[in-house]
């Protein structure tokens, strides 16, 4: 069962620390390869915490781990920390301002238990070579 939520992105302190420690390291994937969902949205999705999910928008799709919102409640709003995972699905249109629309992308979230969350380097490499499912 898929749910529809409004996706926003941004910095978290874990994102900042793991980014400075090296974006090739697993800690960066742990910090940013996630989607923060409200408990109410978890209920609708019918999934346990820490389940891998596929997040899909008009602009792309990515596998991330669904975790409970750390700065909630915010039902209907989902949060992926800024980084390559979020950027697979955000709205790239700038509407003549130069600024892609990083906040406020409608996305669909569905359980994808058996699919892995790729590391940052793997994700962009495979994406660029057209090797992503």
């Amino acid at each position, binding site marked *: 069962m898929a749910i529809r939520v409004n996706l926003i992105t941004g*910095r978290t302190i874990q994102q*900042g620390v793991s980014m*400075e420690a*090296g974006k090739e390291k697993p800690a960066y994937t742990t910090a940013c390869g996630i989607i923060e969902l409200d408990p109410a949205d978890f209920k609708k999705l019918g999934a346990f915490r820490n389940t891998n999910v596929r997040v899909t928008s008009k602009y792309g799709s990515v596998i991330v781990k669904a975790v409970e919102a750390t700065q909630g409640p915010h039902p209907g709003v989902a949060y992926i920390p800024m980084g390559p995972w979020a*950027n697979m699905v955000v709205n790239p249109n700038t509407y003549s*301002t130069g600024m892609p629309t990083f*906040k406020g992308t409608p996305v669909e979230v569905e359980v994808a238990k058996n699919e892995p969350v790729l590391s940052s380097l793997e994700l962009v*490499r495979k994406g660029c070579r057209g090797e992503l499912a």
Partner: protein
Amino acid sequence: MTKTVTDVICPFCGTLCDDLEVVVSNDGQELLEVYNACAIGAEKFLHSQAKDRITRPRMRQEDGSWKEISYDDAIEYTARMLTDAKKPLMYGWSSTNCEAQAVGSEIGELVGAVMDNTATVCHGTSLIAVQDIGIPSCTLGEVKNRADRILFWGCNPAHAHPRHMSRYSIFPRGFFTGKGHTGRKVIVVDPRPTDTASVADVHLQVEQGRDYELLNAFRVAFKGEQLPDVVAGIPKEKIYEAAETLKSGRFVIIFFGMGVTQSLGKNHNIDEAIAVTRDLNEYTKAAIMPMRGHYNVTGSGQVWGWLFGFPYAVDLSRGFARYNPGETTSNDLLRRDEVDAVFVLGSDPGAHFPFSSVKKIYDRPSVAIDPHETPTTEVCRVHVPVAFVGVEVGGCAYRMDNVPIETRKVVEPPEGMMTDEEFLKHVLARVKEIQGE
């Protein structure tokens, strides 16, 4: 034996903390401890000591593997790529010093590049708004010493500028703010109850993307005019109350972040936030300040401001400086295939641009200058590692309030490693040679 270097500047965020203490080995070769920094700043200093750090330039091979090359080869590749291109994009410039930015700008002028910095995905829309209607601003010192009403709009300093609240905005005791946080009223506007909101007196959980409406409602409330029952998800009573809180202050400061610059409305959201500040000045003293992200993104705006007259998205391809956000901005250029080579220094578009733009970098000749291994180095043809500015080399940086601060060198870079400025100077010399041929 060790020695302690005091008053070290932190090269992470725009707060540019200047009170760090760093313990280094007596010979200055090894960095051992960092005091006073936030978790992110400390990690930045410590990561310079990583044993697996890449110390020589490398070029990607046909099969996707890396081959080590010399700095001379990297300089030659970069200079050729830039001179061969009809319209190269030279992007980044925010995690480096002003000296390197100036050399880079000279290269950009010679090769007819488009120069763009990270404001393009950060506070670029704020800069457009400032050009539209101006900005009544102040320094962080004034905030610390005078501000008794603090409004954080669409920003979360607890995570993005971790020491901002303790050094300048909420907790410090200043000249006219001797009671510290007990003398201040803090309002946070954010679609999430963030960690910053948890230390605020009032949190207005605005509906995502409805900032313009709420800002406009504040202007109505200041004048005591009628509001609908609910605006942007906030009951009108709360808006009137917050508006009164702001009006009753002696000095109001509005800090704003990506929540308003990246949501729909973009520069118009900032227009309205500045108009709120202007209106507040009818009743009290008010100022507004963007929460700049990279430690020297403000500096690159300054350098280009005095060199070209524009703070970002400067197109030099016609031999003179043009500026038209939406046309000369990195993501628009990449998505429309209007640049034919990409040079990145002091930023990571591979991680922080929408993927459709990242793919375009991969498809072109490209060079990434970065101390770290990043998604950008992963998609570029050549990666040139350099010394960390603010750790292994000093130089000028501008804080988010446009105050220049000289960063300090605290430790030696790995042997034989170039700085941004040295590498760029070599590229500049080579570009001049090639163009003279």
